[in-house]
């Protein structure tokens, strides 16, 4: 029996396993960085980890604060600029990238712009950042949705998934063959896309979650993989790495914030 773990650790590991050895990987801040660090340490020692800010081939020692955080590594191999980081993706040199999700539809199209009307939003989300261009040209895109929603129709389409499904992405002539989202991770399970219809389906389910828990969050009749499995239990090695590398992430955002504020109150002479 291996050590106890938090849900956050399980999520990191599920994502890390999407990084294969010798691949070129564009990371995002948060879960993907920890996943990248874990993959590099345990599964994919020759992967080239990159940030769109032009940090190419780095080994994260700490979680990054933002996409241009060069404080979280001890040097890197190649300092290029944002322009070239994207055109290198355009040319097909990026194997896998990671994007966060606000809303997602049946075919993996993503909204990270706004909830409600774009011009007068109920909630303004971050925007595109690098997302729209990466999902267009990286060979695979891993989507992570920790606080977002499945919807029938996006309030805003920021990042192109499989458009209207089937071969519509390929037929648009805008994207290289074989690109598109390969997986969606949520706090409840792992989803993948049907090879033909490109419709999203549930492929793995996390411990303590039922299919019904998931289905009630999806406003259409969600397909389930015939070989649906439970997300595998972390190994001690995986748990130890994440505990040490990203303790705040292991705690989850709310608990980490609570503990951090409490600590600051203790430390500061005045507030």
């Amino acid at each position, binding site marked *: 029996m291996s050590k106890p773990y938090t849900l956050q650790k399980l999520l990191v590991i599920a994502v890390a396993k999407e990084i294969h050895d010798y691949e070129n990987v564009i990371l995002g801040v948060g879960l993907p960085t920890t996943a990248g660090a874990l993959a590099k340490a345990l599964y994919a020692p020759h992967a080239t980890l990159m940030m769109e800010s032009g*940090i190419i081939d780095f080994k994260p020692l700490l979680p990054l604060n933002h996409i241009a955080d060069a404080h979280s590594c001890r040097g890197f191999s190649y300092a290029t600029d944002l*322009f070239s980081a994207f055109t290198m993706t355009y040319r097909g040199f990026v194997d896998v990238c990671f994007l966060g999700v606000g809303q997602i539809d049946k075919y993996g199209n993503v909204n990270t*712009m706004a909830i409600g009307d774009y011009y007068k939003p109920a909630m303004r989300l*971050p925007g*595109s950042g690098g997302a729209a261009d990466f999902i267009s040209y990286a060979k695979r895109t891993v989507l992570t949705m920790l606080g977002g929603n499945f919807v029938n129709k996006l309030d805003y389409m*920021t990042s192109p998934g499989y458009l209207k499904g089937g071969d519509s992405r390929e037929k648009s002539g805008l994207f290289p063959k074989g690109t598109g989202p390969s997986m969606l991770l949520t706090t409840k399970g792992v989803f993948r896309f049907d090879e033909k219809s490109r419709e999203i389906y549930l492929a793995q389910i996390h411990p303590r979650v039922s299919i019904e828990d998931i289905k009630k969050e999806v406003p259409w009749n969600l397909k389930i993989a015939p070989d649906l499995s439970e997300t595998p239990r972390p190994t001690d090695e995986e748990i130890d790495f994440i505990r040490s590398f990203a303790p705040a992430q292991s705690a989850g955002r709310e608990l980490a914030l609570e503990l951090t504020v409490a600590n600051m109150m203790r430390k500061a002479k005045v507030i």
Partner: protein
Amino acid sequence: MLVGAGCVEKLVTTYVLRAGGKKGGSAVERALTAATLQIEDYTNFDYNARMVAGMHGFSFMQVLEGVMATDLFHKRSFMGEDKFRVIKCPYTEKNILTVPAANPDVCIVHVQRADKDGNAQYWGAMGSVAAAALASKRIIVSCEEIVEHDIIQSSPHLTIIPAYRVDAVVEIPWGAHPTEVLGYYNIDPFMYGLFMMSDAAADGLKSWMDEWVYGCVNRAAYLDRYIGGFGSEILDGIKAKAFYSAPANHGSAFTTRWDREGRERFMGLTMEELEKTFQERGKLYE
């Protein structure tokens, strides 16, 4: 912060930082809801491409066509038709998505070091720093240290803005605080956290700005207030340790045409012998 202070009517952006997650908010969201702000969204690459075009003196730049499938292309605000335009490649006939050049009026950029002429050196994540500065009509460089010119000259590959483009250079230690400067200090999680917490609500941001922006006559006053209030321990704890780049040898074999014996290296003659030859050959004008 500028949006929060009501300085912005129209914003072209690629990313809006949201404080406090779902329950939080941002100055931009509040301004959009209040209809005091118009917004135009690009991808990071697209807006960077606008500055790269501006940096090179071009009127437009081609960008990546995938965006044509998204609402970034379809939904437009104050830029209208000029947000994106599509042309045909003159060689391949394929559709090319373009964006117009951007040449900001002023760029204020904080770097690690500069010389007094303004040659600005920056290292770490390059991002769009150089393009943003070089596209701009005026450039103000602030830096952690003003160093001697020979430091710059020995390491020209770190320079991102040449002196002749710089309008002013200012030495401001801790100039990026509470954010970070590679090789000088890390982000200050305490002060940055305070700012983020205050940014989640309009009155919070206002009181933070009253204290830390309007309430400080200059940068020294800001630091004095910080140290006076919170002590210097946090700052000491975020100071960067040494991890220096492996140097590049910019040396050559010699720096004068004359060897140690005073002979010209190609011709093998001393200056006197050479002048004598010139005279013998009738080359000299008296």
